[in-house]
Each structure stands twice: as C-alpha cells, then as structure tokens.
C-alpha cells in the first residue's frame, strides 16, 4: 500500500519483462513479455521476497490478477495458459481459506494446496536457470569467429539436411506444383480457333515464323498441344508451308508466295 511511485525491475540480462508500478494499481509493462505464467509467478514471488515454500497465496493471486487485467487493458493478447493459472491460483486460495481438518494435521505438508504449484515452480526454475546459462554461453560464443570461406568450400557447396528440411522442402514443392496447376487451368481458355487466328496473323505480319520461337512463348503442355494442332491446321488450310533449312534445324512457317506458284 505504498502511495509513492515505485519501480520494479527484473533483470535477466535486460531481455525479459519488467513491470513498472507508478501507483499501486497503475502498472506498466516495459520490455518483452513473461515467458509464461510460471515465469510471471516467480517474478511476483521474488518481488514480495516471499519464501517459495510458503507462498502468500492471497497476495500473489491478487497481484497476478492485476497483471492479467492490465494486459487486457493494454490490449495484449493474454495466452490461455495465463488464464488457466489464474483459475488455479483462485482455487488454491479458496482451499487455503477452508478450515483445517483437525484429523489431517499430521499430513499438513502433503495436504498443502500449494504443494503441486511449488513443485512445478521449482522444476521450472531449474530450467530457467539453465536458459540463463545457455544465454551466457552464446554470448561468449558470439565473440569467436570461424575462418572465412576458402577455395575448397566451393567444391562442396552443399547443404546438410534434417528430417524437418525434408518435410518443409516437400511442402514447398507441393505448393509450387499447386500454383503451376492453377496457372495451367487459367490458360486453358486459349481455344484452337484463337490459336490459329493468332498464328495466321503473326505469319502474315512477318512473312515467316520460327516454330521454335513460337513454341517457346507458350507455357503449359495444353497450350503446346493446341499450338501444334494449329500449326498442322494452318499448313493444311492456309497458304503456309513448313520449311526446314537443315537436318534437325529450326522449322520455319513460311507464307507461300503466290506469284511463284
């Protein structure tokens, strides 16, 4: 119940959440987020300088709920796990208020409604400390550099792969494939009649047209088939002939010169 502004800082290498309290019910978050409900709980317990084996559950629950409410007010999405923990805290709090069963006095430790939570917090705290250790190690490693690329690396421009890579690559191929299929369906609308008209116009414009060039403009197999049929059709019905200047050379579609006939 301090009326003065107070400042809480939480220093995990300035990477994680901090809560600034300007007045008792006007909390402000600074930097990041808590990594989870257990992270937040540990923070609140530390702030109260409470013994983890004897958590002042009513007080901590109130503070926890204040934090959640504040997040909501700031439009920060509150992960479902935070709400689940809130419910658990309220439940523990209410069980703590129940009168003690005098018959169970000897089993007090086991019956402590907080016990399960304390176990989880202790387990979690170990890994949090391990995370901090990893953080320190990676900081040291960032000061060490491997050699620059040398010529021999070029001979081995390969990547190593994991099962995750295998699956993501497969996913990518499938989506790439889907796009192609979509494109093909889109182009299907080019009819044989359009293709013939198109082709005829091109030949009349320039006098002759390379089949290879014309086919190269096409994308889908269906278009190629339509174009192929169109070529046959135009040779059969219009004054156009096929010319090949050398064996295996390009085939030219040539307008038949009327005066030469």
């Amino acid at each position, binding site marked *: 119940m301090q009326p003065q502004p107070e400042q809480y800082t939480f220093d995990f290498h300035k990477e994680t959440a901090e809560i600034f309290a300007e007045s008792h019910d006007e909390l402000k978050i600074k930097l990041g987020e808590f*990594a989870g409900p257990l992270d937040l709980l540990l923070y609140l317990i530390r702030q109260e300088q409470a013994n983890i084996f004897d958590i002042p559950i009513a007080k901590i629950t109130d503070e926890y709920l204040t934090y959640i409410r504040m997040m909501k007010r700031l439009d920060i999405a509150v992960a479902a796990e935070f709400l689940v923990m809130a419910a658990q805290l309220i439940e523990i709090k209410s069980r703590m208020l129940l009168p003690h069963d005098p018959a169970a006095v000897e089993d007090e430790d086991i019956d402590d409604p907080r016990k399960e939570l304390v176990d989880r917090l202790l387990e979690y705290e170990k*890994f949090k400390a391990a995370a901090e250790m990893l953080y320190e190690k990676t900081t040291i490693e960032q000061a060490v550099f491997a050699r620059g690329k040398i010529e021999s690396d070029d001979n081995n421009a390969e990547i190593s792969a994991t099962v*995750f890579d295998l699956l993501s690559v497969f996913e990518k191929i499938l989506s790439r494939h889907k796009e192609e299929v979509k494109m093909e369906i889109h182009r299907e609308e080019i009819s044989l009649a359009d293709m013939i008209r198109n082709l005829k116009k091109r030949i009349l414009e320039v006098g002759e047209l390379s089949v290879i060039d014309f086919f190269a403009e096409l994308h889908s197999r269906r278009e190629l088939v339509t174009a192929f049929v169109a070529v046959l059709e135009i040779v059969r019905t219009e004054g156009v002939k096929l010319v090949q200047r050398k064996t295996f050379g390009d085939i030219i579609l040539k307008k038949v010169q009327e005066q030469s006939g």
Partner: protein
Amino acid sequence: MAETAEAKEHRDIAELSRAVEALIFVADEPISTKTLAEVLEEDREMIASVVEELASSYEERNGGLQVREIAGGWQISTRTECHEDVRKFLKTRPSAKLSLASLETLAVIAYKQPVTVPEILEIRGVQSASAIKTLLEKRLIITKGHKETVGRPMQYGTSKEFLIHFGLKDLSDLPSIEDFEDLISS
C-alpha cells in the same frame, strides 16, 4: 641406429602435426580425431596427442587464433579477445538473440531429450510451438522420431549446431540440471 629411429620419429610427429593443422583449417566443420586418424592413416591415440599438443602450442603462442574442441571435433577460430576488430571488419553485430521463450524451450529440450511438445508444455507451463519452430529453423534442435505412446507425438533433441552455437564439446559438457537446483536453493 636408435638415434636415427628417434630422429625419424621426431620428424614424423612434426609432419603429422602439420597435416593435422592443415586438415583442421580446411574442414568447414569441427573435425573429429577419428576422421583425422582415418585420413592420415594413423593411430587414433597418436593423433589425439598431436592435436592436444597443437592446441597448447596455439595457446602458448598467444596469437589471434585458437585450436579448440567443439561439437565432438577440433576447430581453428579467432580468440575472443579479438572480437571487436573482427566484428568491425565483418560489419556484423552480435547475431539476433534467441527470445526468452526459445531459450527456455531449448534448455528443456537440451536436458530432457528426447522430449515431446506436451512434456515441454508440462515444464514451461506454456505452449512452445513458435519457439520450437524457430529452433528447428535455426537447426538448434532436430526431430528424434515419434514417441511410442498415444498419438505418437514427435520427439525433439538438440543438434550438432546446438553444440557449436553454445561452444560445447558434447552434451556431457553441459552443467547438470541438479547444479541449478543447488544454485536456486542457496
């Protein structure tokens, strides 16, 4: 006769040391004593002692480089003292740090591997999906097959890149999780 043999042996070790140094240099990943022994067709113990000797000669020389054991192999790298100059030259900043959520998830995976998503959730008390995705993408963790329980959940473990990234020789190089318990309770 004995002297000649000795002289020959001395020359051989120097030669071997040269070859070892050259191979560690060209390898683009830490190179194991085993691979070195195979390529050089030499006894593994012999190679091991040559590498140790090489590493300590770098140490004595106190230059800009070091030979160090990492991720089950040997690597030549710059010394930490030179990091400012190197960074300035490479124009790099310390690479993007992992978020707290990713680090926590990685710590759980490192110590509990092989471990499933629900098991990580149990310890962290929060979903770790996006952290796991990040760690997979950064290749710090790899899948370790399905667990033979209901739903056959995927199991995860740490990768070789994990060891390299955190400067660890192998997993046993990690402090034990119980050490943290003592740290917390003290």
